[in-house]
């Protein structure tokens, strides 16, 4: 293929991609209205019936509301995914140690059993700092969510390899069987069932999409059974070009 044809193909591809993302955005946005209506109506039915209703009816209403909330959260995740290329595009200098400490503090505060250690041999970089924050927060959230220990230990280690910063997020959880290492990045894949679970299986998908968007990579290292999980994030050191 000659260069002109290649350039044309790439141009068409990016047009298609843009249209696809707009489509996803519109669909998930417009679906919100009827879902909100269903959610409201079920609240009103419960209210109007009062307390004097059979247990099974009450349970069905609760299930209906829980499923509607699930649907809302799933649509919210699709919306977030469709907007990765359009939101949080501010570029700024990130001083890594304070940045990582600040990002870890809410997790430490929320659960005293969570301990996060931070090491970085790199002082900082100029980048999409909101995006970097989202990705790392999702990875820490994921480690806490899947832990099987009373005390959650997470290490965030930053090193440099060539054109990239390498962030390793290592936990002391149950680890992953090798056969799911790709699937965990699929949208709405959850290791545990969705029933009664706040997790809808979108965090890692969003994290990976952001990593790809900035020109980096996100993958999981499978350690020997019982040794926890290690996510490896390659993030470009180069300052992004302003759009």
């Amino acid at each position, binding site marked *: 293929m000659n260069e002109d044809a290649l350039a044309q193909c790439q141009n068409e591809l990016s047009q298609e991609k843009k249209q696809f993302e707009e489509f996803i955005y519109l669909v998930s946005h417009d679906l919100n*209205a009827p879902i909100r209506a269903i*959610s*409201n*109506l079920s609240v*009103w039915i419960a209210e109007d019936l009062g307390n004097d209703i059979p247990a099974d009816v009450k349970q069905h209403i609760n299930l209906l509301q829980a499923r509607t909330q699930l649907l*809302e959260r799933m649509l919210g995740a699709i919306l977030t995914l469709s907007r990765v290329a359009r939101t949080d595009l501010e570029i700024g200098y990130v001083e890594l140690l304070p940045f990582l400490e600040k990002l870890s503090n809410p997790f430490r505060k929320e659960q005293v059993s969570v301990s996060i250690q931070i090491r970085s041999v790199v002082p900082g970089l100029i980048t999409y700092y909101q995006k970097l924050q989202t990705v790392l927060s999702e990875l820490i959230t994921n480690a806490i969510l899947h832990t099987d220990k009373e005390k959650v230990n997470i290490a965030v280690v930053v090193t440099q390899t060539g054109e990239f910063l390498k962030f390793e997020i290592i936990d002391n959880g149950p680890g992953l069987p090798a056969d799911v290492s790709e699937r965990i990045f699929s949208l709405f894949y959850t290791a545990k069932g969705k029933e009664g679970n706040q997790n809808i299986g979108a965090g890692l998908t969003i994290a990976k999409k952001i990593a790809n968007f900035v020109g980096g990579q996100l993958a999981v290292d499978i350690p020997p059974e019982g040794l926890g999980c290690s996510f490896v994030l390659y993030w470009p050191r180069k300052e992004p070009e302003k759009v």
Partner: protein
Amino acid sequence: MNEEKLINILLVEDDEVDIMNVQRAFRKNNINNPLFIARNGLEALEMLRGDKIPKPHVIILDINMPKMNGLEFLQEMRSDENLKRISVFVMTTSNEDSDKINAYNLNVAGYILKPLSFEKFISSMSTLNSYWKLCERPSL
């Protein structure tokens, strides 16, 4: 007895459940202000220019509607000498910056995203009601 002035409100909204949402939130908050309803921008303009309803002090406006959408309605309203000073609150699901910019350029008093839960909606309505009560309006 301290007689409160009633604030006439016009709700411009095409979704029936969203209309019920506002009515129900009014009841929950004991808001007794007269609430009139138009199902799109054209209908709202007709009501405002006719004499079937008292002139509203406040308009709650959806953006995505058939026939004439909220922003087109606003444009029309702001260029009408008799209508241009009415306070308008946009209440929509659209989280797009372009919609927010267009709305504020047309001097809306607020841009509010429709909350997902009814609980939150009740408290938003209560806040708005306190704000409406606080504001002074010309007698005509």
